[in-house]
């Protein structure tokens, strides 16, 4: 019964989303306040209904109701409760339901907190949001219904894919979807602006917090996915340039560009058309990612052709929204007036450079991801585009951007002084160079390239700190005044610095692991030891262990430092999940500072020993710490007074600055 209520709520939500996509739009056209007024209750009701539907599915999972096909396919009565709940979105149907839930939640947020938006803009934004919701609700109902029953109900479920039975599934997809779907709001704002043919700085002030929130969530989601892959897949890789990863990385790249161009639009009223286009592109890439992942087109064009219903459905959604919004853009973009003028060497100029490199990087990753599909559909030949291609192209593209980052915040609006900015960055430059030299001479077998990479990482961190120090006036005013000024700095300044420093930390982790990683491999018997980067790894033996829904063979290791002192134990295991008849490996990881000792078990050797692979991953944790710092930067920037709800209205009262000023 609960399941049917969930299904019914979803149908009702679909009907309401149709109302939401039409009524406010018509109302805004005709200036009918009553029709526009429908948007708010409709958006809130859709959220309530989708939430009810999601709750119903969750109840079915918690109760292990195997008469529901989706639960039977993806759950097991012996599964721990956490995985019963996370299993709701650990499958295609449930994850699409989560997608729609988050979409509905964003629409409801606009309805709730959009009180100070112009009435027609709000109506149009909600209408566009309603259209997206309608399309995806129809997709769920028509081709991915999670509420289908089976008769007779099986006694036991088929269990969730063991590799998904991890805390990662609780955090990674929801965060990732918050990011993906969060960009839908930017998209809706962009389309609404195009429908109205009017766009101003207030628009940017409204779009920026949504972009920031979505971007921060997506950053966290990608980082979480990366760490999950790192510890779960068993050979210590953190980024594989897999098409599915690229699908989430693409909106991140263009979202980062959007974040920066929206600043220019808000502060200087320039780059309007470009910002609108980026908002459309970013969500389009989110949709494309959903399509690539959901349609099966990635494995092969032919895999797509064998079961095309879902794929074609999403393809239609894709064409309708991307094509429709781009057509609207082509029609209306000229009605948006160009804004402030600036010199190429200026804050705006820096942000434009950022956009150039980020969009080029995004386009490169996009083409690389789609290239095998294109070649196969044109000539029928199968080719591969993998990590070596992306490392070779993405690296050189992103390096100039990393080098330029510290200059950006130090340049003045309209017309900056590159020479003065370089002078101010002199200390940061010297320090990073010194650290590079120190690594080169002290840490052995560091190549010049790695030392330079480390210099770039520290350049980013020190550059970000320099910006804060300069803005606080450290060294120019007395320490107490500087401290007061430091505390009084706008939150967005801290946000910028943290995000840029986080980027530096992530770079540091990536460079250190790529250049300094140590790998060892051996067949080990109990009592054997092997040396890994100065640590001695002693194999104590294999021990059986019984989990709630798996059996496990644990390989226990003790690691000792150079002086022969025991430092701790590492347990690396091979699991077997009887429900799915599937083995998994659980890597054993010990953290030493920010570095990790990573141990994975391989096959049994014929002589009774076991193949052990061990890695020393220096400073690896910085990869994800950097992402968390970036996320934190986004969150702190969100807390900026300017961006808080209600603040835009107060600021709009100020006399408008003249937008066009001579650059000379």
């Amino acid at each position, binding site marked *: 019964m609960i399941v049917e209520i969930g299904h019914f709520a979803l149908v009702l939500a679909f009907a309401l989303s149709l109302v939401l996509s039409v009524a406010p739009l018509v109302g805004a056209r005709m200036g009918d306040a009553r029709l526009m007024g429908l948007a708010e209750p409709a958006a809130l009701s859709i959220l309530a209904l989708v939430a009810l539907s999601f709750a119903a599915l969750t109840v079915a999972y918690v109760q292990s109701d195997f008469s529901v096909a989706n639960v039977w396919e993806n759950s097991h009565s012996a599964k721990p409760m956490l995985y019963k709940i996370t299993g709701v979105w650990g499958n295609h149907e449930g994850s699409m339901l989560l997608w729609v839930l988050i979409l509905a939640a964003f629409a409801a947020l606009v309805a709730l907190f959009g009180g100070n938006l112009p009435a027609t803009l709000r109506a149009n934004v909600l209408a566009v949001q309603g259209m997206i919701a309608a399309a995806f609700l129809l997709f769920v109902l028509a081709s991915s219904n999670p509420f289908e029953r089976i008769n007779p109900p099986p006694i036991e479920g088929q269990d969730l894919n063991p590799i998904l039975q991890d805390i990662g599934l609780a955090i990674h997809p929801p965060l990732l979807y918050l990011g993906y779907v969060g960009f839908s709001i930017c998209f809706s704002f962009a389309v609404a602006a195009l429908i109205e043919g009017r766009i101003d700085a207030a628009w940017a002030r409204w779009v920026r917090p949504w972009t920031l929130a979505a971007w921060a969530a997506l950053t966290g989601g990608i980082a979480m996915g990366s760490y999950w892959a790192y510890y779960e897949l068993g050979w210590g890789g953190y980024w594989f340039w897999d098409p599915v990863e690229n699908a989430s990385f693409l909106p991140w790249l263009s979202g980062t560009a959007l974040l920066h161009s929206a600043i220019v639009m808000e502060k200087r009223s320039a780059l309007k058309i470009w910002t609108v286009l980026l908002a459309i592109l970013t969500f389009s890439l989110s949709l494309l990612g959903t399509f690539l992942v959901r349609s099966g087109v990635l494995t092969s064009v032919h895999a797509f052709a064998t079961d095309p219903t879902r794929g074609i459905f999403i393809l239609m959604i894709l064409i309708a929204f991307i094509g429709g919004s781009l057509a609207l853009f082509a029609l209306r973009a000229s009605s948006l007036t160009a804004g402030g003028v600036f010199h190429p060497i200026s804050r705006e100029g820096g942000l434009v450079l950022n956009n150039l490199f980020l969009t080029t990087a995004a386009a490169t990753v996009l083409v690389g991801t789609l290239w095998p599909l294109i070649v196969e559909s044109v000539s029928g030949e199968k080719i*591969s585009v993998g990590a070596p291609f992306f490392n070779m192209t993405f690296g050189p593209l992103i390096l100039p951007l990393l080098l330029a980052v510290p200059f950006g915040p130090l340049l003045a609006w309209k017309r900056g002084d590159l020479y003065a900015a370089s002078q101010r960055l002199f200390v940061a430059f010297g320090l990073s160079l010194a650290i590079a030299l120190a690594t080169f001479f002290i840490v052995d077998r560091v190549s010049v390239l790695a030392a330079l990479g480390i210099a770039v990482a520290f350049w980013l961190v020190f550059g970000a700190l320099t910006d804060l120090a300069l803005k606080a006036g450290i060294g120019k005013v007395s320490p107490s005044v500087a401290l007061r000024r430091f505390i009084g700095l706008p939150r967005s300044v801290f946000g910028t610095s943290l995000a840029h420093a986080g980027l530096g930390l992530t770079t540091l982790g990536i460079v250190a692991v790529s250049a300094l990683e140590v790998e060892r491999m051996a067949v080990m018997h109990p009592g054997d030891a092997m040396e890994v980067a100065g640590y001695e790894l002693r194999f104590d033996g294999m021990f059986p262990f019984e989990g709630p829904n798996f059996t496990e063979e644990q390989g226990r290791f003790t690691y000792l430092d150079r002086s022969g002192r025991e430092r701790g134990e590492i347990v690396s295991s091979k699991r077997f999940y009887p429900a799915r008849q599937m083995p998994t490996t659980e890597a054993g990881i010990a953290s030493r500072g920010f570095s990790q000792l990573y141990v994975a078990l391989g096959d049994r050797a014929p002589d009774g020993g076991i193949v052990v*692979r061990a890695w020393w991953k220096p400073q690896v944790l910085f990869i994800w710490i950097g992402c968390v710092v970036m996320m934190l930067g986004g969150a702190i920037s969100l807390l900026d007074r300017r961006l808080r709800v209600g603040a835009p209205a107060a600021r709009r009262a100020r006399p408008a600055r003249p937008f066009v*000023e001579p650059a000379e």
Partner: protein
Amino acid sequence: MIVRWLVVIWLALGVAGAHAVLAPNEMLDDPALEARARALSAELRCMVCQNQSIDDSDAELARDLRVLVRERIAAGDSDDEVMNYVVSRYGEFVLLRPAFTMRNALLWGMPVILLVVGGAFLILSARRRRTAAAGLSDEEARKLDAILGRSD
């Protein structure tokens, strides 16, 4: 859903599970040759996997290919010769980094084309903006004065 789908696809292909990728008994005795073999392995795709190099995969076919690469290296082949040999047997599909050929020109050229076109566009529009904002010509200034004078 990055990891989930990665994993699901691998599982569908029956290659997940124990990651006893490269086994110690496969390795070449000469560390220099072995290092070359590892580097080449990272560039070759495991044919039955989703986006995994033969170095990362524990599939039977990946193992065969690893052994093949080492055989060729031990036989004295250069890196290019090994790659050509593998491609001649398995086709371009094994290359994780597509060849520099005319067909892949757009793939490899994309970053450069975009940077050049985008950069040129930016420089041109910056020029245009500057001329547009350069102020009034003498004649325009005189006209403006005249208009302002009359309206006063």
